């Protein structure tokens, strides 16, 4: 590390999160804690059928119950279609949703909104609403969705902002295909070819806080929406569009939230609550229970991948051929962008070949809609790719890390799937791999060994990229004000969902200003107060918003120096300013921000003004963080049970702003990945009902399911990011599945190609091997 880096005051320090005391106290901090007393309670009546047209809804009996305020149906809501996907406008997502639709498209889809004085009354009323359905034959298998006789979105007003290869009349939500080079021709020249089919589940983010929103009207008659959301500005836009009102009549506030992981990058409860309050002009609250959270939101996309890799004897992977069928579920949301994002964050790992194909039809089905889940397509794409690379290594009889190193992209190089002027600008990829190998003692021991009579141990490896923000789209603005007491407030529309983003931004801003951290307050995620930010997703906050924060701080610092110079009557170059006190270099004069600020509140004209730093920033590139994961597992060879023993991970996220928080991000992501790999099952009944829709059936890892994690970092310097940062939020989930698959393979020879790798599946693979 250079001397300049070592001298940093705040960036690189493991500060405690600034909201720690509040969220661990029991004081009001989360959405549910702020619900106004007497707010009307909304409950959603849901479809028992996977595909049906509502013929009649009779709410007469329900409306007669005392305390029932309203029952809203598709007849009552505006007819403008929208997307719920949290993406910058114009969204690449189909506008295929209505607040309430006459068609219901999955078991759990919303049929009616029951509004009552309390929950018990609403539930009582829900029981006596009579609905008549024209039940249609559902589409329950993505493999048979294309051209199925049932058209899930027959509406004529489904709208695309841009072409995404969609054809709803064929149940094609969107599609994507990129072919570079001659796939078959190059494969024919390869000395080694591996081919297999891999499947990943539509796993659930399962944030501990479910979805909830309450709405009120403010003193100007505007709609105020307080919600557990990652995307306040997008939600404001969605509400305005859906209710057909100007966005200026809507305010969205996000308090502390209990996790997101992408689930709250798609609006869930907001539109219902907004409609109810806007219509009734009364406060209303909607809180999803766990069943609804798991069943009536958006998940990862299930995909079945057919992959072929071809390599020549010199060890170079010449062909990467990945063709998938993907399940969009009932609504399009992030269907297109998750697939394209997956390409950008997987294929470039191995850039030395001649041909690439990456394509998928992404089809509508009568399952819960897919949306955004940490990793956002990269996790799904890295599952078949990394498993196939390991398979290729086995076939070639070479070490699976050696094969990867031979093919790994280097800094300064391009990829067949990069933009023409895009290169990998930074990264310490080989260093990260070397470090992980050392941690796991990869070269010092066998990768397959007998533990005891009934257990074998194995090591497996996987690499991963992600991105940092959405290139050319994600644009963040940050505002930093010098308040009248000489302290600073940083305003951001990014959304700290527990990650510590607020803290990180302040570390970066205070680094520039020079002041102690406690001289700054962060206020976030209130659309009336803070400048525009897409929200926290796409691993954008540290890189995009953070760089904007740094620029805003520089803007303010420059203004402060200029102003101090004026008041101290010296040239700017003669001032040393540490964020709190400005001193002349000769030591004769000084002034603090506490002394300066009140003066500014009574000055006007060109002499002085209230000082505000502001910056808007976006990037033409999305520099990829990089991760190496080495899994060590024990397999019970009699039952197939896989027990994670240790996980060794090294992350290159560029400059690490807060090492403790970065480490926890990695640990959290690894364990979510372990859940996807080993314990989290998505099962639909034969009639299309999601059976794994509660925590009893959908098993997220407990603290006894993960073994011991060992996380370390290598710090590259990303030239485009403030202080050299990239990102860490998503990459951390991407290695667990293929690394564990490789460890099982090494341990006992069982080759798993579907997720999760539960004991029965491992047992079957062991039997198949014999």
């Amino acid at each position, binding site marked *: 590390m250079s001397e300049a880096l070592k001298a940093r005051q705040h960036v690189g320090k493991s500060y405690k999160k600034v*909201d720690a*005391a509040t*969220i661990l106290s029991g004081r009001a901090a989360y959405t549910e804690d702020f619900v106004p007393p007497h707010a009307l309670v909304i409950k959603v009546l849901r479809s028992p059928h996977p595909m049906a047209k509502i013929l009649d809804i009779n709410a007469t009996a329900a409306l007669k119950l005392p305390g029932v305020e309203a029952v809203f149906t598709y007849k009552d809501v505006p007819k403008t279609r929208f997307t719920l996907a949290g993406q910058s406008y114009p969204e690449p997502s189909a506008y295929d949703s209505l607040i309430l639709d006459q068609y219901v498209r999955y078991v759990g889809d919303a049929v009616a909104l029951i509004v009552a004085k309390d929950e018990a009354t609403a539930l009582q009323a829900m029981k006596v609403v009579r609905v008549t359905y024209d039940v249609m034959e559902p589409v329950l298998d993505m493999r048979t969705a294309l051209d199925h006789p049932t058209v899930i979105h027959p509406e004529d007003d489904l709208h695309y902002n841009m072409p995404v290869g969609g054809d709803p009349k064929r149940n094609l939500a969107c599609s994507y295909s990129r072919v570079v080079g001659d796939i078959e021709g190059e494969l024919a020249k390869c000395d080694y070819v591996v081919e297999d089919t891999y499947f990943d589940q539509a796993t659930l983010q399962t944030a*501990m806080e479910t979805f909830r929103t309450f709405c009120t009207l403010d003193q100007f008659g505007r709609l105020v929406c307080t919600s557990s959301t990652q995307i306040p500005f997008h939600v404001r836009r969605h509400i305005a569009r859906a209710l057909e009102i100007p966005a200026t009549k809507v305010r969205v506030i996000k308090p502390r939230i209990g*996790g997101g992981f992408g689930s709250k990058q798609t609006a869930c409860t907001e539109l219902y609550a907004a409609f109810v309050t806007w219509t009734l002009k009364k406060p209303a609250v909607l809180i999803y229970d766990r069943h609804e959270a798991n069943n009536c939101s958006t998940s990862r996309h299930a995909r079945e991948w057919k992959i072929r890799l071809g390599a020549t004897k010199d060890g170079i992977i010449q062909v990467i051929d990945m063709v998938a069928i993907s399940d969009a579920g009932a609504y399009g949301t992030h269907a297109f962008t998750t697939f394209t994002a997956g390409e950008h964050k997987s294929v470039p790992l191995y850039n030395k070949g001649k041909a690439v194909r990456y394509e998928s039809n992404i089809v509508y089905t009568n399952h819960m809609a897919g949306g955004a889940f940490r990793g956002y397509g990269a996790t799904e794409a890295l599952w078949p790719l990394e498993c196939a690379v390991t398979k290729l290594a086995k076939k070639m009889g070479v070490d699976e890390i050696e094969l990867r190193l031979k093919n790994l992209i280097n800094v300064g190089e391009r990829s067949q799937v990069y933009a023409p002027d895009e290169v990998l600008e930074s990264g310490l990829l080989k260093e990260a791999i070397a470090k992980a190998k050392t941690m796991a003692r990869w070269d010092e021991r066998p990768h397959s060994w007998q533990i005891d009579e009934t257990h074998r141990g194995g090591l497996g490896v996987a690499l991963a990229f992600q991105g940092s923000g959405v290139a050319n789209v994600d644009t963040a603005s940050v505002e930093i004000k010098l308040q009248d007491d000489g302290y600073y407030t940083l305003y951001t529309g990014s959304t700290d969902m*527990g990650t510590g983003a607020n803290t990180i931004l302040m570390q970066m801003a205070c680094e520039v200003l020079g002041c102690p951290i406690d001289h700054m307050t962060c206020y976030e995620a209130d659309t009336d107060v803070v400048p525009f930010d897409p929200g926290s997703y796409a691993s954008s906050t540290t890189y995009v918003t953070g760089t904007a924060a740094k620029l805003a701080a520089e803007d303010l610092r420059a203004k402060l120096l200029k102003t101090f110079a004026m008041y101290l009557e010296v040239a700017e170059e003669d001032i040393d300013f540490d964020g709190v006190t400005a001193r002349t270099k000769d030591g004769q004069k000084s002034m603090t921000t506490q002394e300066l600020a009140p003066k500014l509140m009574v000055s006007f004209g060109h002499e002085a003004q209230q000082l505000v730093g502001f910056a808007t920033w976006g990037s033409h590139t999305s520099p990829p963080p990089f991760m190496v994961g080495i899994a060590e597992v024990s397999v019970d060879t009699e039952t197939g049970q896989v027990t994670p023993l240790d996980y060794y991970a090294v992350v290159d996220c560029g400059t690490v702003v*807060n090492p403790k928080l970065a480490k*926890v991000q990695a*640990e959290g992501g690894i364990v979510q990945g372990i859940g996807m790999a080993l314990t989290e099952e998505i099962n639909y009944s034969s009639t299309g009902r999601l059976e794994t829709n509660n*925590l009893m059936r959908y098993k997220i890892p407990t603290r006894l399911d993960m073994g011991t994690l060992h996380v370390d970092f290598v710090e590259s310097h990303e030239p485009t990011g403030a202080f050299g940062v990239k990102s860490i939020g998503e990459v951390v989930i991407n290695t667990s599945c293929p690394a564990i698959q490789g460890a099982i393979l090494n341990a006992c020879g069982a080759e798993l190609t579907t997720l999760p790798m539960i004991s029965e599946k491992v047992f079957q693979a062991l039997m198949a091997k014999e």
Partner: protein
Amino acid sequence: MEVSLIINGKKLQVSVEPDEMLLTTLRGQGYFSTRRGCDTLNCGLCTVWLDGKTILSCSYPTYRAAGHEVTTLEGLADEAALLADCLAAEGADQCGYCTTGMMMSAMALRRQNPNPTDEEIKDFLVGNLCRCTGYESHLRGIRRYLEEVEA
């Protein structure tokens, strides 16, 4: 039903339906440290103490708490603040939604077993799920707390 409760040492008379659960009563009294995370007794977010033993308040009828001591995080203020600080020092306070319930388990464990092994800590807290942290930082934070609380 009229029920006499003792919450964090304070006597309280409440009027509840027979099937009002303790979680609802506690949140109604402003004890926001208790939260609902599921409806199948799996998550542990609603963990409180009944006579010093951890229970799931989401499924415990309030009327049954009569004559027992109910303790929430708010009633363990100083010790909870120390544990909170130790967790924060490890970054273990991510979204925080599971943490308060987990803290109730951690503080109960210390009373039962002041020198637990890592395995014993994980085992005692297995009923407290977390989705953010990957659990390791919880362990580091609790280790700090066990050292500091003794001092």
